[in-house]
């Protein structure tokens, strides 16, 4: 490939890439702003996962009964507050 051929090939590639980049496209992806509710719903999933983990570790013998009950109460309390806020936001 001569130097001229190389430049021509490069220019053709540049043209193709320019067309791809600036081609008028109306169907580009868009996304609404993430709300507090979205965040709380994500957090709810995480709290449920934490509770499942706690239950599983208890069954696997890692927590004595009293530790388990304390931890579960704490997590459930946190989850209850979160669910209440979710409900409040969903009704608003």
């Amino acid at each position, binding site marked *: *490939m001569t*130097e*001229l*051929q*190389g*430049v021509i*090939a*490069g*220019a053709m*590639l*540049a043209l193709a*890439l*320019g067309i*791809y*980049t*600036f081609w008028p*496209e109306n169907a*580009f*992806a*868009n*996304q609404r702003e*993430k*709300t*507090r509710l*979205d*965040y709380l719903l*994500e*957090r709810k999933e*995480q*709290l*449920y*996962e*934490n*509770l*499942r*983990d*706690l*239950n*599983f*570790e208890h*069954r*696997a*013998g*890692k*927590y*004595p009964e*009293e*530790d388990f009950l304390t*931890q*579960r109460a*704490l997590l*459930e309390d946190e*989850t*209850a*507050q979160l*669910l*209440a806020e*979710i*409900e409040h936001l*969903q009704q608003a």
Partner: protein
Amino acid sequence: MAAFGSFVLLIALALAAYNLFAGAVALRLIATGQPARISPERLADTARRAGIAGFVAVTGAAFALVWLVFANDFSIAYIAEHSNRALPAAYKFAALWSGQEGSLLLWAWLLGAYGFVLRLLHKTDVKLYAYAGTILAGVQVFFLTLVNFVAPPFSLLRGAIPDDGNGLNPLLQYPEMVIHPPMLYLGYVGFTVPFAFALGALMMRYPGEKWIKITRSWTLVTWLFLTMGIFLGMHWAYAVLGWGGYWGWDPVENASFMPWLTGTAFLHSVMMQERKGMMKSWNVWLIFSTFALSILGTLLTRGGLVSSVHAFAQSSIGNWFVAFLVIVLAVCIFTYVLQRSHLQSEQRLESLVSRESSFLFNNLVLLAACFVILWGTLFPILSEYVQGTKVTVGAPFYNRVAVPIGLFLLFLTGVGPLLPWRSTSLRAVRRNFVIPSIALWGTLIVCLVAGVKPWHDGSFDAGNFYALVAFGLSAGVFTAILSEYLRGANVIRKQTRRNLFSAMYLLIRRNTRRYGGYLIHIGVVIVVVGLAGSAFNRNSESELTLNSTMSVGPYTLKCVGFTQDSNLNYNSEYALLDVYRGGKKQFQMTPEKRVYLASQQPQTMVAIHSVPGWDLYVVYEGTNPDTGNPIIKAFLNPLVSWIWAGVIFIVLGTFVALTPNLAPATVALRVAAAQPSTAEAAVRGGD
């Protein structure tokens, strides 16, 4: 083809610059809600496409360089310097990263490839990906500026065009060198992606921790590449450099190890952020540091800042990297100061006896190790700057500090899984630790009885002591992890009435991240056992005449001949050694020394016979100039193969951790969200 390569590199730079500029403007317009003539979303999409197009352009340049190497076009200075006609095809590919210009092009291409995948996946979270893509473009602009104006790979050779090139550095003419540097670079470059996501999430004050879930696979894959790159490098050093070891605390080895340490710390502590919203600032700085250390690694490898057997391409390009590092740190600090209120922890550490605290200790220890290595690596540069004399920091310094740190880290590897999240009582801790403690002390006693004693001829032997502790801890950690698998499998077995193996499989599939992580920990334990074996290395050196013998460990090596050979690429001479054990011939070894014709550089090819207990490692050191007889050095290196076996577990574990979980066996999502009491019902179904 050179004109094509140069041209498309310029196009790639223009596209990256557009990606950066248009992306930044679009994100600013979206953030402020200012009216604009063009829709900011449309502008952001053109920026994204410019990133994709940029990857195509860099691919064109990389293709052009490889094409020219295969075409033996020695009018290109880079190719005349790093290739020759007789170079085997696989090593012609290696020429792409054997020199400064090519390796910077490889950096840009890999970054383009990561960015290409990222931009294709943008619908996962359009805004976050737009931020990450724009930050990637900023990094890409830096590397493309270098390959366009500072270290161009397509520069023409001044003067007469030679018939043949200088050839590839002989140290690089080894099969692993075809994959080790790309792996390492995939690791270095890959950390740009979680860095970009973290910085982007901070810039946009991303609500929640979902960005961590989005980047988890990226971080794990990158970590895996870096891990494999480091171990392939160790194996290459072991098999090629001929000194009997695999890790010499060389500055370039250290450069790859430091981002690995901070990246490993990030992988652990980010779980606390995901689960409990803790340690947000810490995690952000861990990933910022990991990226900065990756750039520092590239600077050390390519910038000529330190002397190293691994620094294959040195020049004054270091100033550019230093400037880039300063800019990166300035952007990180500025963003952090501006947005730090977004990084408030949602919860506090409840107890020192918890999984969280073990992660915290693990992080502190990993960072301490990183700081020690950074200090040792940069000390020669600092001492030269301050005092005018370069003070070398050798392996004894690192071993004295890093070995105890490493053992403490191993201890934490075993302790972590035994501690539950949040907090627990000491009684529960004691109960969980009984079996691992028995394994630890039992192993120590067995080792002492077997003769692994921390004293030698009445004096303390630090090597043996550390090996003894490593064996004991390894047994304890292995037992702790195994007990975790068995405990979990037993719960599943009782729930589903499956057999133990089937329950184990289901256990792993239900929580691939945790149990894949444990598999990685088992790999680390196996690697540590292999490393501990080095305390018992033996070697012997001898000048061998025909039919004379030498001994090392249980082996006797008998010289049955020495001969020479040659091909288009190199001349070689080697010894034929019959290896006997217990009076019986076992196998033959042929340690070799080559002289590469193009570069006239010598290279050792070590002969290695590996069994699980040890490696017999034989080096042909050359001939005695007075007698013409070969000089052979033989090493007996215990447990080396365990290191490579451990890596297999680490790779397997990472693949498991990357596999999506099976859905939990619950009806959690069907429960009405407004009733707090139903949360319990939602999770009672199992894990």
